[in-house]
Each structure stands twice: as C-alpha cells, then as structure tokens.
C-alpha cells in the first residue's frame, strides 16, 4: 500500500467591508461559516456510489439502510462548517492498495478497458498513476490555456481565463469521481468537503479567482497551486520581455503603445525636453516600467491588432486634433466638439477604420502631419 498526501488550505477571503474596517477593533475573532448551496449539494448527492462507500463511517449509518438517501441529503443540506480565518487544512490524499478487496471489481473493470498490456494496473503505484496522469494532463492544458489567454485583448482575456478555469475544474471533478475506485481517502470527510468546495459557488478553487466575484467568500490554496502560479508568472514575464524586445526595434511601435495606453501627456513633456537618442531612451524606460507593472496586460496590448490606430488616435488627442470630453471617454473633433468620433477608444477605432470615413480621416492625418511634431 502507498499513501500519497495532498493538502489544500481552505481560506477565508479577506474582503473587509468599510463597516468591518470602521469596527475592526471591536470585532471578536471568529470563523466564517461555509454553508450549503443547492447546486453543490445536488452535485454531491449525484456521487451516489462514492458516498455509499465513504460516508457510512462519517454519518454512522449503513448504506443499505432505508433512511440512507434521506440522511445523506440531510447531512449535506445541513452543512455548517466553521472555517477559521487562519484557514482549514483539508487532507485530500489517498491510500492505494492493490489488495484492497473493495476495489477489486473496479480495478478489473478499468483493466478491461485498457487495451495495451503494459498500461494495465498491476501495482499500487499504477493505481496512483492512473489518476495522477490524468490530473497532470489537465494541469498542462490549463497552463497552456492561461498563456494563450494572456496574449488576448483585456476583454477577451477575462472570458478565456474563465473558460479555461471552468474546463479545468469540470475535468478534475470527472477524474475525482473515479478516484474512490482505485484508492481510499486518507481523511474521507476532508476529501468530500474539498470536493464540495470544488462545486460550491462561494468558493474559488484557486487564489487567482478569489477576486473574480463578490459572491466568493473562501478560496482553496495548495503548495502545488502556488508553485504553478509562480511558474505562470515567470512564463508571462518572459513572454512580455520577448514582446518588449521586438517592439523597441521600431520607434513608431514604441510611441504607438505608449500613446495607446494613455501616456500622451507624459510623452509630450519628454519630447519637449529630450531629442534623438535621449528621447528614445526615455521612451524605452517608460515602456519597460509599463511592462514590469503588469506583464500580462502588456502582452495583450502588444498583441492588439489595432494598437497602431489606437496610438494614432491618442496622438491626435494629445496634439489637439481630437478632444476627450472631460470626465468621460468620449472623443470628439477638437475644433468641432459636436462631431463625435467615438464614445470610447474602441468606438473611435471603428470610426477611423470605416471606409465611409476615409475622406474625413485623411483630413485629420493632414492636420496632424502639418504640425510637424516628433511623432507625426
């Protein structure tokens, strides 16, 4: 028999309301209650076979009892688990034993489905590998999906990240639904509570998703998870650096990105005080600090196919060809503010790309060129 520990921390999300801050001194240390939700309870109740195997020792009732279904539903609907602010450790690891008679039937069924002889389950280690191989494939797919999402525009990135996250945990849920067939949880209640958390709408399955919704009150964290986040952070930084190195080969590209992210005023000031190589250097420093501040956002900006046009529009705003109405994102013609170019930068891009507006866009180009600025 082999035992593989896999610990998760269930942590209360620190989301101090202004009211909590105002009364921080008087708040008595307490725990937050993880309650039941209909969706998560129903998901748990759907694991009928697994619950029959793992829960008799938790609720003290045999699975053959006529009250079984009612008592199991009552158990999960009554969930009221205090989670200390310091976190609660959940041992979700398993014991794998090829000689466990309760697993024989399941293992035979799995082996029947595996065609290659060398891949059939023959050892305790194989039992573990059967699950962990699938889990690692899910992790790899998730990592790849995150990297790909980071190169998308800000709006698309959020959607892609959410889709990758949902896909990952739907797959993990399915894999874990088979886990009991090849092993026995070290701590059955903690393992089941972890599974409950995976499908509970008030729990984020990883820290990076804890802030994605006001509905989330807890998040799961594991050492693996932390390491994975660190790996993704470094990979994202490397990719951002690649983009940076390719951008600085062109003066125009550098200016386009900096203008597009709204640094027009700063560039205008730098251009007043610096010339030639000095100005280039200053702009590179500015670009680098933008990259360091948020590498993922930098990648998405650098990959934006409209970045040159966005940069141009912001140049127009900086050099008074266009005007942004104070306190809004609305961009208008500078000399004729009633002529709206767009309600925001994206809408202005649509306006400037529209073939019907070629004549007027070309007039703006001429006006800008006539200014003879360093960025014309």
């Amino acid at each position, binding site marked *: 028999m082999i035992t593989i520990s896999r610990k998760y921390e269930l942590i209360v999300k620190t989301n101090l*309301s*202004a*009211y*909590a*801050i*105002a*009364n921080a*001194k*008087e*708040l*008595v*240390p*307490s*725990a*937050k*209650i*993880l*309650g*039941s*939700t*209909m*969706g*998560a*309870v129903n998901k748990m109740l759907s694991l009928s076979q697994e619950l029959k195997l793992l829960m008799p020792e938790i609720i003290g009732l045999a699975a053959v009892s006529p*009250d079984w279904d*009612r*008592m199991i*539903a*009552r158990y*999960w*609907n*009554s969930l*009221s688990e205090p989670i200390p*602010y*310091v*976190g609660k450790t959940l041992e979700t690891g398993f014991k794998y034993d090829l000689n466990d008679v309760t697993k024989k039937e399941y293992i035979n069924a799995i082996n029947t489905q595996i065609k290659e002889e060398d891949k059939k389950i023959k050892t305790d280690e194989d039992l573990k590998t059967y699950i962990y191989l699938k889990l690692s494939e899910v992790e790899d797919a998730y990592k790849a999906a995150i990297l790909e999402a980071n190169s998308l525009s800000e709006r698309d990135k959020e959607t892609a990240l959410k889709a990758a996250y949902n896909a990952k945990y739907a797959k993990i849920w399915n894999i874990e639904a088979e886990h009991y067939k090849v092993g026995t949880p070290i701590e059955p209640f903690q393992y089941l509570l972890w599974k409950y958390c995976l499908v509970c*709408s*008030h729990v984020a399955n990883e820290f990076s998703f804890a802030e994605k919704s006001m509905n989330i009150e807890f998040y799961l964290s594991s050492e693996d998870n932390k390491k994975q986040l660190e790996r993704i952070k470094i990979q994202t930084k490397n990719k951002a650096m690649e983009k940076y190195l390719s951008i600085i080969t062109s003066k125009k590209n550098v200016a386009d990105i900096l203008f597009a992210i709204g640094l027009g005023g700063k560039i205008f000031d730098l251009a007043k005080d610096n010339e030639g190589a000095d100005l280039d250097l200053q702009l590179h420093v500015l670009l680098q600090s933008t990259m360091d501040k948020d590498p993922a956002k930098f990648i998405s900006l650098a990959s934006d196919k409209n970045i040159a046009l966005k940069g141009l529009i912001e140049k127009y705003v900086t050099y008074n060809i266009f005007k942004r109405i104070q306190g809004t994102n609305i961009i208008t013609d500078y000399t004729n503010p009633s002529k709206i170019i767009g309600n925001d930068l994206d809408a202005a891009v649509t306006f400037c790309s529209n073939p019907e507006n070629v004549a007027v866009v070309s007039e703006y180009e001429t006006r800008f060129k006539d200014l003879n600025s360093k960025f014309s």
Partner: protein
Amino acid sequence: MRELYTDTYNNERYTDENVLYKNKLIDPVSLSTALTYLWGKDSEMFPLLSLTEGQSGLVSLTPKTLNDTQYTWNVMGRMKHVSKVVALIGGQSYPGQGFQPFQVVMEDDTFLRYYGATPADKLNNLRVQGDPIRDGANRYIYTFRINTANPAEYVAASNFIAGTYWVQAPPSVAGAYSEGTSSRSQAPGKWTNQFGFLRFSKNISGNVANKVTNIEFDLEGGGKTNLWMPHEMKQFEIDRRLMLEEDLWNSVYNRDQYGVIHLIDEKTNQPIPKGAGIKEILKTTDQYETYSVLTVDKLDSVVNRLFSNRVDKTPMELIFYTGSGGIRMFNEAIKNEAGTQSYYQALGEKEITSGKDGYLSYGTYFNQFKTIDGHIITIKKASIFDNGLYAELDKANGNMYKGFPDTSYDIILLDQSMTSDGERNIQLVAEKGREILTGVYKGLTNLPESWGAIRESKLLSSKTDEASYEVLMSQGITMKNYTTSYYMKFSR
C-alpha cells in the same frame, strides 16, 4: 392603470379624511410613526420599521460635526483571553523539548506574566515566563515553558502558523517567594455606524388635485374616496416606506478607513453618507451562512452558535423573519425531522382533520420549534421578503424556486429584546430635528387637500404650472448586540 373618469372637485360631495398629511397639525416624527403603524404593523410589509419606529424605537442624535453622520454605541463584550501568534523565534523543529524555554512573537500583550497558556491544538500546558518584550507595532516577544514531566514533549509546528489563536490559562507560582501577578479589566468597546439621508418628491401639474375617478379607493385611515390624489399620495407613501424598509436591510456603510466618503453628489460635490443595514452588519460579524434546504440540524447549529455567544439572560423566544418560501422550508424541515423519528401516526392525525359537510381537510403546518435548552424558535412571515424590491428583482430575472423569489427563502433572526441597559436591541437612528422634514414647492398648480395647510398660501415658488411635495429624512439602524441575530441566505 385603469382609465380615469374626471369630474370637478366639490367640497360638499367629496370630503377628504386624510388628516395624517396635515403636517402642520401633527409633529412629523409622530406622523411617521403613525404611518408605520398603519401600513407597517398591519401589513407585515415593513418588519424593521415596525420593530423600531412603530414601537417608539427611534433615537434622534445631533451630529458632532457638519456632514458627519456617524454615531457610536458602547458594547461590553465578553472578556478576551485569546491572542494571535505572529511567529516562532528561532525556527526550531521541536520547540520546548527537553524542558527548554522558547520564544514566540504574539500580536498583542494579552497574556500576563506567570499565567498559563494553551496553544491551538490544546495538547500542551504552557506558562508565560516573565513580562513580554515589545518588539514593534503588534509584536510582543513572549517566553514560554511547557509544564510537563516528559522531556520529549514539544509544541507542534501547526501552532505557530501566523494568525493562530492561543488562550490564556490560570497563573501558577512557586510555593514560596512568589511575586504578585496582575489582572486585566475590559472597558466597553465602541461600535460605529452612520445614518444617511433620503429624499422623496411627488410632482404634480394641472388640475390633478381636484380630479375624481369612477372608482373608489380605500383611505389609509379607513373610509373611501373617489378623489385621485389621496390614492396617489397613499401609493407615494407606501412606496416611500418600501424604499426606507429596504434601505434598512440592504444599505452599505460607505466611509473608507480614512473616513472619506467617495459617493459624491455630481452637482454639489457633497458626500452622500450611507450606513450599514442589517444584512451588512450580520455578514460583517460572521452571523451569516448560506443554506439550500432547511433542516433541523441547521436550525440547531445556528441556535447553538448564537447561545454560545451569550452567558447572561437571553431571550427565550427567537423570531425568524422570512417570506412564504422560508415558512414552507421551516415546515418541511420539522416534518422531515418528525418523519425521521417515525412520528407518522401522530403527524397524520393532526394533518388530516374533519372539514365541512363530511369532507376531510388536509394540512396543518409547523411554525415553532423548541430546542433542548427551552428556546422557542418561531417563524414569522414578513411580506417584504415576498414583495419587496429584491423580491421584485428576483421575479424579473427569473430567480424563482418553487414559485417564490429566492429572497422569499432568506431567513433573518432578529433579536428584538431589550438590552441589559433597558434599551431596544434594534433601534432606528436619525438626525435630531431632521428625522423627517416635509414641505411643498408650490407653483400655479392646484394643491390637493392632503398637502396640508401650505395649500392656503398665495405665495408661489415657481411661475410654472407645477408643484411638488418634498420629504427629506435621515435614517440609520443600530443593532446594539449583534451576537444574538443571524442571517441565513438561501443559495442555489
């Protein structure tokens, strides 16, 4: 809206019995109380306003400074004996082993010299050796020693995770030459909330004040009228009450840690204060959890948790407010429990009774549950959970479960007892002198009788054919002791 039949107003034919609005005759605060009584207590639509304003539970306060609507109240909590670990000094693998002292940084100096201490896992008995040494903000270095005869005993690493609480134990000293110890007292703490301002206006123009309709409307004080304006004003008042009631439940405190309010009026740049409502108070203080299908176990655990917070005299009857969905959940929970205990016959005898004319009647329902400690839990329907603004939102968005909006299943236990100082636990708070202010902005439009003595004035505020009835009020809520109230949110 039904089509209106119009007629000219005639004083002889149509008498206006709407005396409540004659606000020159009635003090505005009493007026407000009377309205709450009429439309609040009777209809159960406004449980919070009925509990507070409707039962003289209104406290008027004078702001300390202009625009500062904060108020505080004293709370005497239970003596605090726990202290939070910051870190173990030295990082040894087996702290305390071999009778060796070890040092721990604690977040405060709660533990006193020579007192005992118990770490989080309760597996060791420790003693504080000497006074703590202050090592910066929120850092106090303590020296501990294990009280044991076993040289192998040590304090497990899990006890030193930052944020873990340890508890103080009784002081132990030697039989001779011992030094005196010390003790702590606890001053009352201060809780803060703030009230906000709400303003409602009713605008009219033309001769609507004198229009009568071909249908009769009920008057709030009893009786009927064919006049349109009393009916419209009744709608205005009921809607205003609804908004006020919802605000007491759902308002969110909006002053940041530096005391700045970021919600600013776009015209005047004046801050708009809002206080914490009942839901935010209970969520902030962890008197909150979600539920899916109500069970007796869940009710038990909530009640047990509440009473572990109180050691003094506690109310014996607990009122849980909920909507139609919640009372059905409650009934189902008790019936399921009775089923589990095989009380089929007893239940059946109560459930199926003789009806009229030889027919049988099916259906009796639970609305009370008595715990082993003698506490009676009573479930009470409050229509705001079924028909309030959040319920309306749920209905519009299709957030329905078994025919009721999700909000209808939310359950809130409000401790409405008197506190030990003889005050109501839940109080409505308002600014002194500005609890409720009413006035009329008068143009050339005829004013209805219901707008009070102002209608007699010949002075105009506007040249336009218009007029408006204005109400400005201040409102906040105080829950003096939050530990005996609870919020169970239905979650899907």
